[in-house]
């Protein structure tokens, strides 16, 4: 299974070293991230899992280059991250697609440097990949929530980044659409082999998707545990191993799985 346990065999894509983050608001300082250390291998699918507001999105934004950490460094491909870069594209929780552009124009947004033929070729490819054929000239306001999210993934993939950073991308979708989207994302990941960092507060989502799940504590966020999910895709959600790993994380977070 090259898809799982990739970190030791392949090259390191991301190195997070002693990252700390302090937010200052109205003169009050809040420690958001405390001493985070993490390595992600190339082509690996890693989920950052933690309760809402714990700082996992902050960590993602630091890796993306939107925020500078108060202490420590993030390296991507050996280089220290100093700002946003088209080689690592963020897919936002919601409304990241540009509502003033059509589906085609959104996907082509990052392709201004290409000549027209090549651009159109790529647009067509990714329109097909995310299942938006027939909607090329629609505006996002005419699309459903799931379609908008697929559109944003397509726009990210079109610039051929090394890495996708997804910030609770399916959080606003209904549960059925969410399941479909997870399957779609895995299919795309298996086709394109990008490194994926995926922020979620949904334990099931993390165990269904990731090679490794990074379990984070409530604020200030520290890494509690890193769980390797050694189940090949497609994953059987009722297999004993799946349930064992899932329950282990539930207990780690301090929740019994009874409602």
């Amino acid at each position, binding site marked *: 299974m090259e898809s799982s346990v990739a970190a030791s065999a392949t090259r390191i894509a991301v190195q997070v070293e002693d990252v700390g983050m302090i937010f200052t608001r109205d003169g009050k300082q809040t420690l958001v991230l405390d001493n985070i250390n993490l390595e992600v291998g190339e082509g690996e699918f890693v989920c950052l899992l933690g309760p809402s507001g714990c700082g996992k999105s902050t960590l993602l934004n630091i890796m993306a280059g939107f925020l500078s950490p108060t202490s420590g460094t993030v390296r991507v491909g050996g280089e220290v991250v100093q700002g946003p870069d088209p080689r690592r594209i963020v897919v936002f929780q919601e*409304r990241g697609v*540009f509502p*003033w552009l059509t589906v085609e124009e959104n996907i082509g947004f990052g392709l201004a440097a290409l000549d027209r033929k090549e651009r159109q070729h790529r647009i067509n490819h990714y329109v097909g990949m995310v299942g938006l054929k027939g909607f090329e000239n629609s505006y996002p306001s005419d699309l459903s929530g799931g379609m908008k999210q697929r559109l944003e993934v397509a726009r990210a993939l079109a610039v051929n980044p090394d890495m996708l950073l997804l910030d609770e991308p399916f959080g606003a979708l209904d549960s059925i659409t969410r399941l479909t989207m997870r399957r779609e994302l895995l299919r795309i990941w298996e086709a394109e082999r990008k490194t994926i960092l995926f922020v979620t507060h949904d334990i099931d989502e993390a165990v269904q998707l990731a090679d490794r799940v990074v379990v984070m504590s409530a604020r200030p966020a520290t890494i509690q545990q890193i769980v390797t999910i050694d189940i090949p895709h497609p994953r059987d959600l009722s297999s004993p191993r799946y349930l064992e790993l899932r329950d282990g994380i539930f207990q780690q977070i301090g929740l019994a799985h009874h409602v």
Partner: protein
Amino acid sequence: MSFEEKPGAVIKVPVWLRPWLLLAVLLVLWQIAIQRHPGQLLPGPWGVVGGIADLLRHGLLLKYVVASLFRVTWGFGLAVILAVPLGMVIGWYTRAEMALNPIIQILRPISPLAWIPIAILWFGVGDLSAIFLIFLGSFFPLLLTAMNAVRGVPAVYVNAGRNFGLRPIDLFVRILYPAAVPQLIIGLRITLGIAWLVVVAAEMIAVNSGLGFLIVDARNAGNRYDLVVAGMVIIGLIGLLLDWGIRSLERVKSFRWSYSEE
């Protein structure tokens, strides 16, 4: 049962016709009132129609309408071209805003009409003065609209744009401007209304043609109040048409998103 109309009680009037019907009723009442109390207070609607016919016969109506629209086009157009990009840049760069805000806030509440003496001093009596006044009246509202619009652009669009490696100039052209367009259209609508108010006032003093001049001239040259009210009606109708014109921008598909979402 209270929602159902009683059969045969009223003739059904189509919804679109009702405001026109109301207008017609008011005009008839106006005419009746004038005929019962003839005097100098106000011409009746029939007299106003005669006034408009008079103006058309002398070729003045078209000439004055064109003169007024010419001034508004230039004054408003120049204000749009300058105020929108400038306002976006000022709104985006916090330091520019902090430096310029006091000046803007002092100049903004001065009515453009207060500038009339200075306009005449600088540009004399003529088109330039009127255009200058309309420009002033449009510039500050548009500047503030653009400043607010750019500040209101959701961070997620800006971050997405930066993520794709946009340089500052591209960020303005490809993200901030299109994201601000719905707000800008609202600002354009309000400001065009202001410009149309200002042109009438400016023409009463600073020029010798246009609809504002028509109103003052009709009074001064023989108390032709039928022409005064005719001028007012024409001003109202053209104002309405201008607003319709700019509202049609709201229907452009790539502008319409903010109206259809949430």
